[in-house]
Each structure stands twice: as C-alpha cells, then as structure tokens.
C-alpha cells in the first residue's frame, strides 16, 4: 500500500506524521519510507538511517559536435524550454533550462547532438531499524526537482507499506510525489494559513483522484479547529487524527526526537490512523 503525506503549507508536520506512522507500523509490517521532499529532505534527522548506497541523479543535456553542426537552428527551434540558442557559428546550451527531453538530439538533421549526463542530485538508501529508507537530495543551485523525485519513485516496493513524505505546495514536485499513491494524508494546522493551503492540497489530490484524509496537527492552536472541521465536513474529507498543540512536542522535535520516542502513548493513535486508512480503502 502506498500512502503519501502532503500539506500545501510548509511546516504543518508532514515529516512528523510520516516518520511516526512508519515507526508505529514497523513491528507488524514491512515498511519502506521515501522522503520525496528532495529540496529540503528532513526525515533522516528523525529516522537516523544507516545509509548504504548512494546514486547520482543525472539528466541528459545536449552536447553539440561542432564538426557536424551546420548551425541550421533546428535544435533551438524545437527546444520548448529555450535551452539552446544558435548564434553566428555557435550553439549555446543553457544547461539549467534543459529538461532533458531529448528533442534536440532526436531531431537534429545532422545527428550532431549527443546527450551527456549532468548531475542534479543524489538518492541515498539504507535502513532505519527495519524500515527500508530512501531519500533524494537536489543539488544546491539546481532548479528542477521532479527528475530526482521520479527516479526515487521508481524504487518503490509495493510489496511493502510505502510511506511517502511529500514536499509542500501543490505544483509539479508535489504531483510527482503523490502520483500512484493509494491514499493521501493531508496534514494541516487550524490557522487561516493552514486551512487556506489545505484547500489547495485537497484540490490537488482530488484532481489526481487520490482518496484523502486529514490530520489536524497543533489542534486548538489559533482556535480554528471548527473551521477546519467544517471544511472537511463540506468536502467529505474524514478527519483521521488530531494531535493537540503542545509546546513539549515542539521541544522534542527541536531535539530531533520523534513523537513516539518522547510520548510512547501515541503509538496506538498512529496504529489507529493506519486502521482508519485501511477501512476507508476497503
């Protein structure tokens, strides 16, 4: 089963929920954890995995052979991302704009373009206890996280329970992370910001036809629980779990502790959360 954890707004507790769910499940299930927030991966601070393997993520970018190029301009014409320009006697490649689609090399009439790999990030994998742990990390200065997420997602093992920690927002990196999920947990906080972005995230999941449930984190903070619950009722989104606002939880987080480490009583709540998801899917 593939469960992704998303939110719209950053900092609502996606990583906290994903990590603690995985930890609660590991004794009775085989669990795989994928940290798809490759711009700012954080789950490893809490799961503290032993990394065993590391793989560079490359995207193919064009390399023009000047001895074959006639500067006809076809490559620049077909590039949808303006990553190539042909000026008098030279082809300029703007690698940071290239999406690696291969149109230029495919369509060059002189076969003067070959593709070379450019590193944009890395995927690391290992074990956190019995949890198979994988995460991606975009290199600083690289703009495009989807290829890193796509490669990471190819390593999903559907025979395990896959828990995906998604990035914030609702644009392409989120879509790439949520794709193929059977269920999406939306983590929100009862503030106007949390509610506003929950609406966006719920919209994205709906567009992708992924069934959703909501976790209200820092409940009673800001007094907006009622509005979040009203929204969930209106949209027929089940509220599957509530974690009260507690400065002690925030302090434990600041020390790199998980909720289950600091407050073991939560174990049954996370197991209950999983049972609720199973019920909704059956």
């Amino acid at each position, binding site marked *: 089963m593939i469960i992704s954890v998303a939110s*719209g*707004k*950053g*900092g*609502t507790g996606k*990583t906290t929920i994903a990590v603690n769910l995985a930890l609660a499940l590991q004794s009775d299930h085989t669990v795989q954890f994928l940290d798809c927030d490759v*711009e*700012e991966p*954080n789950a490893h*601070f809490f799961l503290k995995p032993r990394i065993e393997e590391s793989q560079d993520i490359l995207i193919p970018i064009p390399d023009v052979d000047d001895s074959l190029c006639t500067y006809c301009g076809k490559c620049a014409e*077909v590039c*949808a*991302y303006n990553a190539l320009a042909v000026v008098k006697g030279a082809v300029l490649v703007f690698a940071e704009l290239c*999406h*690696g*689609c*291969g*149109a230029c090399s*495919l*369509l060059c009439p002189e076969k003067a373009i070959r593709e070379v790999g450019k590193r944009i990030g890395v995927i690391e994998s290992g074990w956190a206890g019995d949890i198979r742990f994988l995460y991606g990390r*975009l290199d*600083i*200065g*690289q*703009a*495009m*996280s989807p290829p890193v997420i796509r490669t990471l997602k190819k390593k999903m093992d559907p025979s395990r329970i896959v828990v995906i920690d998604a*990035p*914030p*927002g*609702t*644009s*392409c*990196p*989120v*879509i790439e992370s949520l*794709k193929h999920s059977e269920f999406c947990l939306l983590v929100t906080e009862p*503030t*106007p*910001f949390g509610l*506003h*972005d929950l609406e*966006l995230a719920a*919209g*994205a999941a709906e*567009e*992708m036809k992924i069934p959703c449930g909501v976790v209200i984190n820092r409940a009673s*903070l*800001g*007094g*907006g629980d009622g509005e979040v619950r009203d929204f969930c009722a209106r949209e027929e989104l089940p509220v599957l779990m509530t974690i009260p606002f507690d*400065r002690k939880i*925030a*302090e434990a*987080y*600041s*020390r*790199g502790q998980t909720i289950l480490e600091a407050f073991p009583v939560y174990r049954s709540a996370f197991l209950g959360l999983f049972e609720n998801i199973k019920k909704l899917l059956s």
Partner: protein
Amino acid sequence: MKQIVVVSGKGGTGKTVMSACFAFLARNAVLADVDVDASNLHLLLRPEIQERHVFRSGRKARIDAGKCTGCGLCLPLCRYDALFEDREGKVVVEPLSCEGCGVCFHICPEQAVEMETQVAGEWYVSKTKYGPFVHARLGIAEENSGKLVTEVRKKAREIAESEGRDLVIMDGSPGIGCPVIASLTGTDLALVVTEPTPSGRHDMERIVGLARHFKIRVACCINKFDLNPENSEEIERWCGEQSIPVTGKITFDAAVLESVVRGVPYVEYTSNSTADEIRRMWFSLLELIDHP
C-alpha cells in the same frame, strides 16, 4: 529601488508573519507574494484586487484520436511517462505528467498531436492599507511556478518605479528549487527565517548555499529562538563563522497566532516585547539594505 526577499528553506518558520510586519513597518514599499504555489500573505494584508491577469504558460500535448493510427512511434520517446495506449490502441496523453517538450508533436507521422498553451494561473495587482501588493495563484498541479514568480516580480518593480517607491518586499516560498531561484536572483538582501530545530538549521544551510551561489547577501532571523536555546546558540555561532548577520531573535509567542487568526500583521496587532524584537530587526535590515 531595492528588493528584499524573505525565504527559509523549511516551510512554516514564519516567513509570512515577518513579511506582513515589514509591510506595516515600511513607509514606501511595494509588497509582493512570490510564494505563488501556496500564497498566504493576502490573509494578513487583506488586499482589494484592482487588476486580474491570466497567466498563460507552458504547453501540453493533446492527441487527436481521429488522426492517431496507433503506430506507437511516440510511446518510447516520451521521457515523462505521459503517453499511454488506450484499449483501442490509440495513444492518449496523461496531462499531469506531460511537460510539454513536444517530442511527440515533432515525430508524429500523422500530425495527430497538438500542443496547447495552458492557463496556468492568475496574478493580481491590489491595493492594501500598507501599499500596492502584487500576488498570484498558480493553478493546482501546474508547472512553471518560476515564470509566474518572475511575472509578479516584474510588475512589483514596475509599480515601484512608476510610483517612486524605494523598496520591494517579497514573501518567498519554502524549498530551494525553481520558484525560490526565481525569487532570489537580483535581490539586494535575502532574509532567511529559521527555527532552532535540526530541520530549520539544515534547511537554512541549504538556502544560504543557494543565495551564495547567486551572490545574494544574506541576513538571518531565528524565530521561536527560546524553543531550544542551545540550538539557537549553535545557529548564531554558525552565522558568525559565515559572516551572516543575525538581525533578529524572536520569542515563541502564542499571541502571534492570534494576530494571524485576526488577519492583522503582528506589529500592528499588539505592542509587546516580541513586537519590539520584530521592529528592531526591521531597522537592522534597513541598515543593511542602505549600506551594502
């Protein structure tokens, strides 16, 4: 005219709360929300929208089933797994995966593929009691957030120039990818709002790395610094080593949330020691902007 952007790497550290305070404290600024993906600044600035603009960007493939012969030439060439064969053997596009590269369009022998321009969002020019405000809403599941950020920034600069305003204040998005790069480039100062947690610290180091990559000056704000004083000290030490001025250490204060619920910038909502910390930070930032 100078530009300051508020970023963080990690989400939820307090970028929008600080940006709204700066909007209140600044005398002659244009405000912009460059978190086009999950924008929130409008919830505190309460804008009155004056202009709406459609944001068209990017294209997606659409296949004419009448022309597709099902030859399958396009299928292995799509690198985004966006093309599928349906039951009748015709190729269909999965729009959420299509990145609009046009490979299928160019190689289709039947010219069955059309590339359609997408409406990817909207952007707005608004009036607020704090000054003009440019903001946007990217369509759900859309791409090209970087281009929309660039659009918002362009308009904000235009307004600043035409109205003789000397500062653009921008509320940024989390992460270090495409939209963040588009918000950072060419700014005079990036304020990194962090928190004393392992994630806050790690994500700050990455966003500082990104700002340095683009040669942007950085200042730091440690929000909720009393949540873990030891971690805060470590962040300060690290900033010292990196010659990054720590312009503010803001107390963890439940009243901040009340101000968000009321939809008012914190320094306008109340006067207390936390509000004073934010005021002092703003004046140090102005110093930094004025004396590069």
